């Protein structure tokens, strides 16, 4: 019981300090600015963006791809690590689930921002053509939202029951809410049975659904004829990219939460070490697919392919390309191969670079291809030969990122970031095995 009290004290959700309030207010301000910009876009049309007939997709789409990729962290951490029996994952699973849920919800919202006629949203359901990759996207995203939510909720039930008890005295209304959400959890054998069976089903389902989600996202590009998109490599390429983006985001958020909530006892250097090794694995896989995507086409390039590779290697997009590849991929691999590199602070910095590089990588996937179509760009204003997002696009995109962070913040504020019941169970297990060992 004593250890349980300590657990509760450390892990129960706490009120926001000054920093927390400032952080939340900042996010809300960014979101409001974005909403105003979006309303302006609805009134004036997408002419307020810098997208035109050639650069017909811009950062709305690359932002969308980024969110979809980041949401893969749920599948990886929770399901894959679970099925491979990596028990060290316990302290980080909830954070991973929260990030995944926030990312996939924002993916759904972001793609609607790119639609020029959101008033005709229902057409996507009434007149849906299943031959279209967009329809596949419309199906898979809600599916993944549902599964991510269930993956967060089922393991949460025991913790909600604990919190109901914990807050009964000081915060009765909060306690009542926790109680309602805990669905009468009493820890009975029957309930535990249903819960563990369900979690096992979800874990098994979310891996293929997660893989399908990333693949369909890739197929939005590879079902066209365009150079740079029409690649047989794109499906696995996006999956590996999601692996990297997801874990990078996880590492970054874990470090921040650990610092703010002082959870050094629970998320130790050991965990960072393991996460670091996982990130290296992800980056190596992604590097392999990058080589297949960029280096090998350079070997026998058609003229169109050569134009595409040149803009990336030595042309207009070269600085960005090399930042993303070296800074976001090769550097992490090198640093994380050393034990010192897998300490918390370097991990955080690497995680941050990986996330930023992941966002700009998707920009490099979407924009350059659109600016070298098969037929020359003629008969349109000079500005249409280039693309850089407008103020509206930046404001709206920042708002979506802020909204994702806000969802994470709110969930972190009200939910135990580290599963309390599970940690308690694991500690009990540990005590038992120690006792047995001694005897």
């Amino acid at each position, binding site marked *: 019981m004593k250890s349980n009290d300590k657990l509760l004290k450390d892990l129960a959700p706490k009120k926001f300090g000054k920093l927390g309030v400032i952080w939340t207010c900042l996010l809300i301000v960014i979101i409001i600015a974005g909403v105003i910009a979006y309303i302006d876009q609805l009134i004036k049309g997408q002419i307020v963006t810098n997208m035109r007939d050639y650069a017909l997709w811009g950062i709305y789409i690359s932002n969308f791809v980024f969110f979809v990729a980041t949401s893969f962290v749920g599948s990886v951490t929770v399901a894959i690590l679970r099925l491979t029996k990596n028990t060290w994952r316990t302290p980080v699973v909830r954070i991973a689930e929260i990030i995944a849920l926030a990312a996939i919800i924002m993916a759904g919202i972001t793609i609607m921002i790119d639609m020029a006629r959101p008033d005709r949203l229902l057409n996507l359901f009434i*007149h849906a053509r*299943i*031959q279209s990759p967009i329809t596949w996207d419309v199906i898979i995203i809600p*599916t993944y939202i549902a*599964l991510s939510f*269930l993956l967060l909720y*089922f393991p949460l039930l025991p913790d909600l029951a604990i919190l109901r008890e914990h807050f009964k005295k000081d915060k009765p209304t909060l306690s009542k809410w926790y109680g309602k959400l805990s669905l009468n959890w009493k820890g009975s054998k029957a309930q535990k049975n249903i819960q563990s069976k369900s979690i096992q089903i979800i874990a098994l389902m979310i891996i293929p659904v997660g893989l399908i989600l990333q693949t369909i996202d890739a197929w939005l590009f590879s079902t066209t004829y365009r150079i740079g998109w029409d690649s047989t490599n794109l499906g696995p390429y996006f999956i590996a990219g999601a692996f990297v983006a997801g874990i990078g985001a996880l590492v970054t958020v874990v470090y921040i939460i650990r610092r703010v909530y002082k959870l050094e006892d629970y998320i130790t250097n050991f965990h960072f070490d393991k996460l670091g090794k996982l990130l290296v694995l992800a980056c190596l896989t992604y590097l392999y697919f990058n080589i297949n995507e960029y280096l090998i086409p350079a070997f026998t390039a058609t003229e169109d392919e050569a134009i595409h590779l040149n803009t990336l290697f030595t042309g207009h997009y070269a600085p960005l390309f090399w930042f993303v590849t070296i800074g976001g991929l090769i550097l992490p691999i090198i640093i994380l191969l050393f034990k010192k590199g897998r300490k918390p602070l370097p991990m955080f910095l690497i995680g941050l670079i990986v996330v930023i590089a992941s966002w700009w990588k998707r920009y490099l996937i979407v924009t350059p291809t659109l600016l070298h179509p098969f037929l020359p760009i003629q008969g349109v204003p000079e500005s249409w030969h280039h693309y850089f997002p407008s103020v509206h696009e930046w404001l709206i995109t920042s708002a979506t990122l802020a909204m994702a962070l806000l969802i994470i913040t709110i969930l972190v504020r009200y939910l135990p970031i580290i599963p309390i019941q599970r940690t308690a169970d694991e500690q009990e297990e540990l005590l038992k095995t120690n006792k047995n060992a001694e005897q």
Partner: protein
Amino acid sequence: MKNQLNFNLILLALFGLLLFSTSFQSLHAQKVKKEKVRLKAQYIKIMDGEIYLNIKVTARVKRKNIKVSNIDLTIYNKVNNKKIKVGETTTNIDGESKFVFKSLNSIKPDSTNTYNLVILFKGNDIFKKAKKNIVFKDVNIRAKFITKDSINYISATLIDTNKDSLVGNQSLTVQVQRIFQPLFIGEEFIITDENGTILVPIEEGIPGIDGNLTFEVVLNDSDNFGTVKAIVEAPIGVPIVDESTFDQRTMWSPRNKTPLFLLILPNLLIFSIWGLIIYLITNLFKITKS
């Protein structure tokens, strides 16, 4: 001195006259100057079909050709120096009008069996009056298709109805009806021989709906006879086969014709996954109840 004075007075008078006359003219010119119209008319006779006049009225206003719409025209038949009114018509929005004769008997030819028509425009506030004469003799084209030594031909004879005389040395055009513009069979102009006939071989492999082709033998805008057209139906075409994929299940068809594997497989996947999700949600309710 006096001479100079007189001279000045005369100059003054002349000057004044000049000014007065110009002002008179400009006064006169304030009345609207009427524009000229151009009347174009074509007499067209379809064998065993309509006989009509195709009238087009245009005017050149401010250096641009415009169509004159909504004006009234009267058609007269000139017989023995008498003008008999045949009918009236009004031009449509495109400045055109089609005046159909109930039959050729409604108008009378003169002694030389030439028909003389006048289209008269009485004029209005904007346009001057105008008239156009149309002179023609009645002629028939008898056309048919024949097959000789397994080659198809169009044969046509030009006959003057007056004495049933054969008209030679006229340019006929043989064409097959197509959308937008007809396709010529043989040369564009084929001259009738001394028997007033032409014989044109039809090239192979002309497609037609159900193999039916509609040929036309046309005497186009001749000076003496106007335009005469004979229509010949011949089932000697290659039947058209509809090759469109509209009725097939393809990747680009509307949703009611999706390919079967896309209908079955994805739906199977979706239903099984969502079936499991619903089962999981029911599990949540089970937990609540237990």
